[in-house]
């Protein structure tokens, strides 16, 4: 059976798609509301951008492990390691904090939090180092005495490699929007999240076949869980 020409492109597209968002969009928010003082949590997440594979649309199965510690009731420090990146010979970690801006301890049960991170990368092949700051904000609403939570927000990475090595790195920022649901128990949190990554980016005329909204950006879905101590 002859393979249509388009499928040859898709082969290379899938591989590159895998790669492109490996580093940029590999985890859900996980921590939307700060931990309590001196509370710790470890987390794991799975999910990624949506790709077409054998005619089906599936999320790229990226994995992350994370750790968080409540400095105060309003501030939590966070760190994550990209385990899928390691499989590519790329060490990836981020370090940052989550800060409560408006407490949800009010009648509406709506709160706002913000976060700042720095992502670090180093590969074993050419020792190429990159770092990218990220800023983000979450608006969340709790239900059922805090056992359920819906949240939405936005974040952006910032380019740090200037002058541009390529024309494409003239992009100063890489925004993302997210909406999610968090199921909370005393010990566990479970996150289900949808992201719209790089909505400002036209996904045509490039080597990857993004599944975005219209011709803009790409969508990703994620699942995360954390265990609190």
């Amino acid at each position, binding site marked *: 059976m002859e393979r249509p*020409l388009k499928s040859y*492109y898709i082969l290379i597209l899938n591989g590159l798609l895998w790669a492109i968002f490996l*580093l940029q969009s590999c985890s859900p928010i996980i921590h939307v509301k700060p931990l309590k003082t001196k509370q710790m949590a470890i987390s794991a997440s799975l999910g990624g951008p949506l790709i077409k594979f054998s005619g089906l649309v599936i999320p790229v199965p990226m994995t992350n492990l994370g750790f968080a510690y409540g400095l105060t009731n309003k501030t939590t420090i966070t760190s994550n390691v990209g385990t899928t990146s390691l499989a590519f010979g790329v060490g990836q970690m981020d370090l940052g904090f989550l800060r409560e801006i408006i407490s949800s301890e009010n009648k509406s049960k709506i709160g706002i939090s913000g976060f700042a991170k720095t992502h670090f990368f180093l590969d074993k092949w050419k020792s190429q180092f990159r770092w990218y700051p990220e800023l983000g904000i979450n608006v969340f609403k709790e239900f059922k005495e805090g056992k359920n939570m819906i949240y939405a927000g936005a974040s952006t990475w910032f380019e740090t490699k200037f002058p541009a090595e390529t024309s*494409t790195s003239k992009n100063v920022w890489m925004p993302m929007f997210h909406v999610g649901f968090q199921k909370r128990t005393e010990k566990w949190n479970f996150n289900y999240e949808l992201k719209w990554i790089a909505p400002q980016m036209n996904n045509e005329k*490039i080597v990857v076949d993004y599944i975005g909204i219209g011709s803009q950006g790409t969508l990703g879905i994620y699942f995360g869980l954390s265990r609190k101590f």
Partner: protein
Amino acid sequence: MSCLRLDDNLFNPDKEINSYQLNDFKGEREISDLPSSYVVDKNLTSIFTLESNDNGDKARIYAIYVGDKNRISTDTVILYCHGNKANMDVYWNRVKLLANVGGKHRYGVLMMDYRGYGLSEGKPSESGLYADVKSCLQWLKENGMSGSRLIMYGYSLGCAPATRLCAQNDILEPSKLILEAPFASAEAMIQDASKFSLPGSYFVNLEVNNAEQIREVDVPFCWLHGEEDDFLSRKYQGQRVYDNYKGPWKEAHIDPKAVHNDIPSKMGFQNYSKVLLDFILR
């Protein structure tokens, strides 16, 4: 423990064939709208094998020559390096088109399947690409070819060996270089897609860099690209190659409606042929 790498994604060969079908090929092919008038003489079409040696990794590769092999010592020949898809059947119409530039069989055309493509042995690799095209240059040389009558033509993936072997070549130095829809580098493809400064080494070990290699090319250069190229953008890929060329002559032909693989069709076959003929004769 070995790591995941995406190098193999550069290659999309199809080895599921028992023979080359050429005119009888029923699959989807490049420039499928080529008029039937662009025929070539069957008696002037030869399929043969060459031994390619990539630093000791030997492979028997298949090649097609369209033209009189007995006149290679006097003819001008276009060495066509095809793209990353399938095998030579897909590109057969392109060879027929080139064999009709300036009139039927005015120029000889040589095309090969890189190792791992079609009936060619082995597994595709970046170094294998260069070795395979070098084996074609060696064959041409042994048949009396001189560099002054050799035109190197690279299309998409084929731009890598075409550019490399115009820049660094101890067998035959082509007299002119034609690149159709070139990519700047493996890293540029990644950065083009990510829109961020991610190093290529995060994903691939490929060293291919046409945008840098072109700096070493000192023969006339013709660049063809589609403004609507939806695979390798004109602006972020081909333009960088063109801008970095510092040789004696360069010309660009950007078709406003062409995508990645239909430049001859969108330009019009006569216009495309005239562009090539004018460049070859200049």
